């Protein structure tokens, strides 16, 4: 095979294509290198832009939301006057219950007056205005206490009362003396009182556990609102999603990936599952409204319905990730199992599924995280705008009693007029993000931990 190296006889050798020194870059090389450098620059710029956005997002959320975790409390000694709370003096619980929260107002006023006198604070405010710096929730808190402890009537008991949202906002810098000029809920004199009480240590800003574990409150009492009950709502929904989407999704994927024949029907199903993953979530919401509520007559606002809707939404995600992880198990493992006489199902369940499990788990967690943060479908089944004031007591209650969900609760708060709720919306976002970050981290750890290479 020597003919290739011989040049045809009689012709002069062609000039060399790559003449010139290697130490000098040709114009073409320069252009190529410049293009590469530019492209790297674009890439870095894109990543930098993303990072800047992320930093802005995180600092804004943390800056605006951390306030929600702190709340202003007033510590008061309250004399539970027998004359007001139990006129007959028989400690009959029915009689005590007859006293409405309105009946507690004089007691609260008395306690406020007492503390002002005790500290020698000079103020021109009336007793009613003194009590005005407290939350409207206080009377209910007091009444609940008295009904639970009727034997304390006639005694003086120390209480930590929520301050009103305006007072709380004043301490957090949200409310200023200029901003309250037209505010009927609070006056400059009351702020003077707040300053004096804060100086005396009666009024202080502390960590508020009730924001994390408490129930939502009505429009007039933003200081009492918490995300806890809607967190339970989310929890029950996730429970439903996990219990339904994981087995259905995994069974469907195993069938499609390992058993189903390849034909136009399975192709069609495959394409449609991929399409479903891209369907806007509100479409699933209206489907849930039509099927689960209008047709099946399941209760509105129930986490069960929310869970069913989110299951529909999560299924494609789980199926796609499960199929991907089943596909990534090398066929040689299936061959090995079949080769020693395992049935197809044994091969799948003994060998393929354990190897695919980390991927399935990761996909499921990511699907759940996606469902946890979903708001739109909940709008349509009535889980938004509902004030969940009591935590569910039983499992059935948790599934069927009306409740909200974390993102729905955040949306609800953001919608309300009082800026105190706005702060709580940001605080709720912090909690929601903590959940999502935890779940995604878990998914990453699981994947790293159990990933097998071969």
């Amino acid at each position, binding site marked *: 095979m020597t003919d290739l190296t011989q040049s045809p006889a009689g012709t002069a050798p062609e000039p060399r294509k790559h003449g010139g020194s290697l130490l000098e870059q040709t114009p073409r090389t320069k252009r190529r290198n410049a293009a590469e450098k530019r492209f790297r620059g674009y890439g870095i710029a894109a990543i930098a832009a993303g990072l800047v956005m992320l930093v802005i997002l995180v600092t804004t959320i943390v800056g605006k939301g951390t306030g929600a975790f702190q709340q202003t409390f007033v510590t008061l000694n309250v004399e539970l006057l027998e004359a007001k709370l139990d006129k007959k003096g028989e400690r009959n619980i029915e009689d005590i219950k007859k006293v409405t929260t309105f009946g507690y107002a004089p007691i609260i006023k008395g306690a406020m007056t007492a503390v002002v006198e005790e500290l020698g604070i000079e103020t021109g405010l009336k007793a009613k205005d003194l009590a005005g710096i407290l939350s409207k929730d206080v009377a209910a808190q007091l009444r609940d206490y008295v009904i639970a402890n009727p034997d304390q009537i006639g005694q003086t008991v120390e209480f930590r009362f929520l301050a009103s949202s305006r007072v709380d906002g004043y301490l957090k810098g949200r409310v200023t003396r200029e901003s309250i000029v037209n505010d009927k809920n609070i006056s400059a004199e009351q702020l003077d009182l707040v300053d004096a009480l804060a100086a005396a240590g009666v009024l202080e800003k502390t960590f508020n556990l009730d924001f994390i574990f408490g129930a939502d409150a009505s429009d007039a009492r933003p200081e009492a609102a918490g995300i806890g009950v809607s967190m339970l709502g989310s929890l029950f929904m996730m429970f439903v999603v996990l219990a339904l989407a994981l087995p259905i999704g995994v069974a469907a994927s195993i069938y499609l990936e390992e058993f189903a024949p390849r034909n136009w029907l399975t192709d069609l199903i495959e394409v449609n599952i991929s399409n479903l993953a891209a369907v806007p979530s509100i479409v699933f919401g209206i489907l849930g409204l039509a099927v689960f509520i209008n047709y099946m007559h399941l209760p509105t606002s129930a986490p069960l319905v929310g869970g069913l809707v989110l299951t529909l939404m999560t299924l494609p995600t789980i199926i796609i990730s499960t199929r991907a992880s089943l596909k990534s198990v*090398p066929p040689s493992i299936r061959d090995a199992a*079949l080769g*020693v*006489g395992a*049935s197809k199902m044994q091969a799948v369940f*003994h060998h393929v599924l354990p190897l695919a499990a980390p991927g399935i788990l990761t996909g499921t967690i990511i699907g759940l995280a996606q469902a946890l943060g979903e708001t739109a479908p909940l709008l349509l089944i009535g889980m938004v705008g509902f004030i969940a004031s009591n935590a569910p007591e039983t499992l059935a209650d948790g599934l069927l009693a009306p409740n909200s969900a974390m993102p729905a609760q955040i949306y609800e708060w953001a919608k309300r007029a009082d800026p105190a709720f706005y702060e709580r919306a940001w605080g709720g976002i912090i909690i929601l993000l903590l959940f999502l970050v935890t779940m995604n981290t878990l998914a990453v750890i699981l994947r790293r931990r159990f990933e097998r290479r*071969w």
Partner: protein
Amino acid sequence: MNDMTVMDKTVETQNIKIAAKDVNVYYGDSHAIKDVNVEIEDNTVTAFIGPSGCGKSTFLRCLNRMNDTIDICRVKGDILLDGEDIYDKRVDPVQLRAKVGMVFQKPNPFPKSIYDNVAYGPRIHGLAKNKAELDEIVEKSLRRGAIWDEVKDRLDAPGTGLSGGQQQRLCIARAVATEPEVLLMDEPCSALDPIATAQVEELIDELRSQYSVVIVTHSMQQAARVSQKTAFFHLGNLVEFGPTGQIFTNPEDPRTESYITGRIG
């Protein structure tokens, strides 16, 4: 070519273990195997040789119906194992594969312990009544796979942590653990270095005493070294089938001669 001395190996006439009659295999529209007739004897190593894509692996996979897992694959004709048609509707491929074991081209141990790799087959077929019996089967199989001495102290170690040659011998041990009657080997040494190859070849020769072994190989030297019968496949046809010595020294068909002398393939 020292290897050619194997032509002296005696070929004893044995019982026919597998008989293939007019076998045709189609992958969709492509005709992969054309009218193959072959008789595989018991206690014999039969080698399938031929250039890439000639259908030898496809034919091998027909013998334990591994092709069933490929949707578009159709098999026509009869393949008789001990006189029974393995493509009969009543035959369960799972039961067939317990009888006809297989070792694959790439070592494919399960990502489990060495013990579990070997014990898996006996477990699913219920060959052991208790742990002691299972231990015995595992030891016997690993010994037969000529790997016992290397792994006896680390049966709990993962099978995937062994070297390539050890993995392949583990796979052979796993295949023999289910007590098959026929052992199919699809290029078992193609992923191994020469030393591991020699060990596996030695093993194949030993296995012949108990099984009918069918081996697909790209290496003609290997076929010459380990087999008693050789079948040459070309473009889906079985060109020539006969005693190994005869195929390598005195082939009848010019195509066989071209292949073994290196002119085609």
